[in-house]
């Protein structure tokens, strides 16, 4: 009886896993297939479209720019959000709802509305500050705010922030030390998660860049598809694989403490 139920549960799990796996992998597989063989199933497999990526300067440039934007956005997000959230939790708890509301707001405004609002601002930035595409980081910071906030908030909720910071301060730690040596290491998983979400969002962003007349990865992929569909698909697959690898790295480095602890217990 019991074992029969366990078996049913197991079958159910495997089925769900397979269906979901197929849901994600079939399109990627199809894209890979298309990028290596073209439209014909009988055509010989070739990596021409993949090697062509590096021969298109616009694509290489866009990849590099998007990666830079991803890094800048993540770093800026952490630098802005983490100290603010810690401070609000410790000293200004009454402001927490307001900060949460502000951070979640971008989620409720459609991207297109956000961009329209930002057009005059970016016109001004292009004239008075810089024409560099890296200025997009400001807009992306707003874009990633809701996701990062949620993730970091969950991380902060999982530690006894008040006691840990007070303990560190009683031992002689200034606020910088408290943040870097006590808060950050104890919510490294949440921080990595927030960064991953930011990176994924930035690498996949199209609307902002396109409407603000910048050429990031997604915009470049679109333009490339007019020239060579195969290459554009190859880049898209590569971007997806990159995100996938990031996710894998995350799941491996996310819990070093537990792993060390388990290793010690086993010893």
């Amino acid at each position, binding site marked *: 009886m019991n074992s029969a139920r366990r078996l049913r549960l197991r079958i159910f799990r495997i089925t769900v896993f397979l269906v979901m796996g197929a849901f994600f992998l079939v399109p990627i597989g199809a894209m890979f297939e298309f990028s290596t063989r073209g439209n014909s199933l009988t055509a010989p497999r070739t990596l021409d479209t993949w090697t062509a990526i590096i021969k298109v300067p616009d694509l290489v440039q866009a990849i590099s720019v998007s990666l830079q934007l991803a890094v800048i956005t993540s770093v800026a997000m952490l630098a802005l959000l983490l100290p603010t959230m810690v401070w609000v939790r410790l000293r200004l708890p009454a402001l927490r709802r307001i900060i949460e509301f502000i951070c979640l707001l971008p989620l409720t405004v459609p991207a297109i509305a956000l961009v329209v609002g930002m057009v005059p601002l970016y016109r001004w930035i292009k004239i008075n500050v810089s024409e560099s595409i890296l200025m997009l980081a400001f807009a992306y910071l707003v874009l990633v705010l809701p996701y990062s906030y949620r993730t970091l908030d969950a991380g902060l909720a999982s530690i006894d922030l008040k006691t*840990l910071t*007070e303990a560190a301060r*009683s*031992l002689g730690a200034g606020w910088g*030390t408290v943040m870097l040596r*006590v808060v950050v290491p*104890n919510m490294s998983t949440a921080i990595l998660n927030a960064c991953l979400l930011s990176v994924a969002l930035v690498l996949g962003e199209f609307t902002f860049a396109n409407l603000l007349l910048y050429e990031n990865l997604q915009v470049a992929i679109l333009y490339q598809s007019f020239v060579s569909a195969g290459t554009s698909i190859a880049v898209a697959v590569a971007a997806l694989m990159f995100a996938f690898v990031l996710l894998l790295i995350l799941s491996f480095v996310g819990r070093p*403490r537990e792993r060390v602890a388990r290793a*010690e217990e086993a010893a």
Partner: protein
Amino acid sequence: MVSSSSGASSRPSARAGVEVRLEDLKRRYAGVTALDGLSLTLAPGELVALLGPSGCGKTTALRLVAGLEETDGGRVVFGGEDVTNVPANKREIGMVFQAYSLFPHMTAMQNVAFGMQLHRVGVAERRKRASDMLELVGLSPHAHKYAHQLSGGQQQRVALARALAIKPKVLLLDEPLSALDAKVRARLRDEIRRVQLEVGTTTLFVTHDQEEALAIADRVGVMQSGRLEQLGPPMTVYSRPATPFVASFVGLTNRLNGVVRDGAVEVRGTRLPLVQTDATNGPAVALVRPEAVTLAGEGDSTPGPLNGTVIATAFLGATSRVTVDLGDVTVLAQLATSDAAAHPAGTRVRLALRPDPVLIERDEAAPDHG
């Protein structure tokens, strides 16, 4: 006591005990007065326990000494140096918290070494002192475990070692035992006292548990509504409470109606000397400790002022607490268990009141605290 020669020099006794003075400390939260002019001086190496019900201001006092909160008035002085405006991380305090406060990403050893690292103690010295401190609290075998692998009592002992490792001027203990179960609590309580005596650090200990305070403190300060009601050695606070509040908060108290006449209070036919010798004649409530009540023997069935019926007996181990119904009032008596066994529930007994000095409470002067 002789400690091992290797450990002695590096232990915090090198900087044993500075005088700690709290001068007229005040603190208000949104209109509510948490601390109403608290003054207290801790002698070098002394352990003072602040005792009181929740909300009496004892934790606020401790946090002001720690620098974790700002004062609305008054001064905090460590060894002659005014630290009132010094931030917590520069005050050279050691603190143990009520909640478990070990850094989860560090081992016990790393936790203990953390503060020394911030104080720029060299690696070799740091390592040595950290192991000495862990040895002092009896946790050497667990030096490389993480907080989640340690029991609550072990975590608090590491926290104590961590606080002492930086050789603080003052050790602050914020109800460090209240999250632990009774048996561990009693053991750790004695251990805290042993360690404190060994290192000689001036210590402020905050608790709501009178037993804890009486057991380990040099002096106990009983607080109520942001004020110090009484400060004195545990024996004095217990046997000579200065105010009715102290009498009712520290230990159990029987409240018996009586009449003050010529410097003594007459309670149900027994004259008891007074703590407040200047009390004027008239009706009053006498506060009588259960251990000052004895069972004099078989009471006859005729109702007398101290004749009554045993209605319950609480077994406490070596002693028992017997509740006696005198008709208009119930009285608690604390007796040796062997004596109490002679008077099971339902038997008639006659009480006697030992003529220890008692406190009185006047209805008009001090309203009933319940």
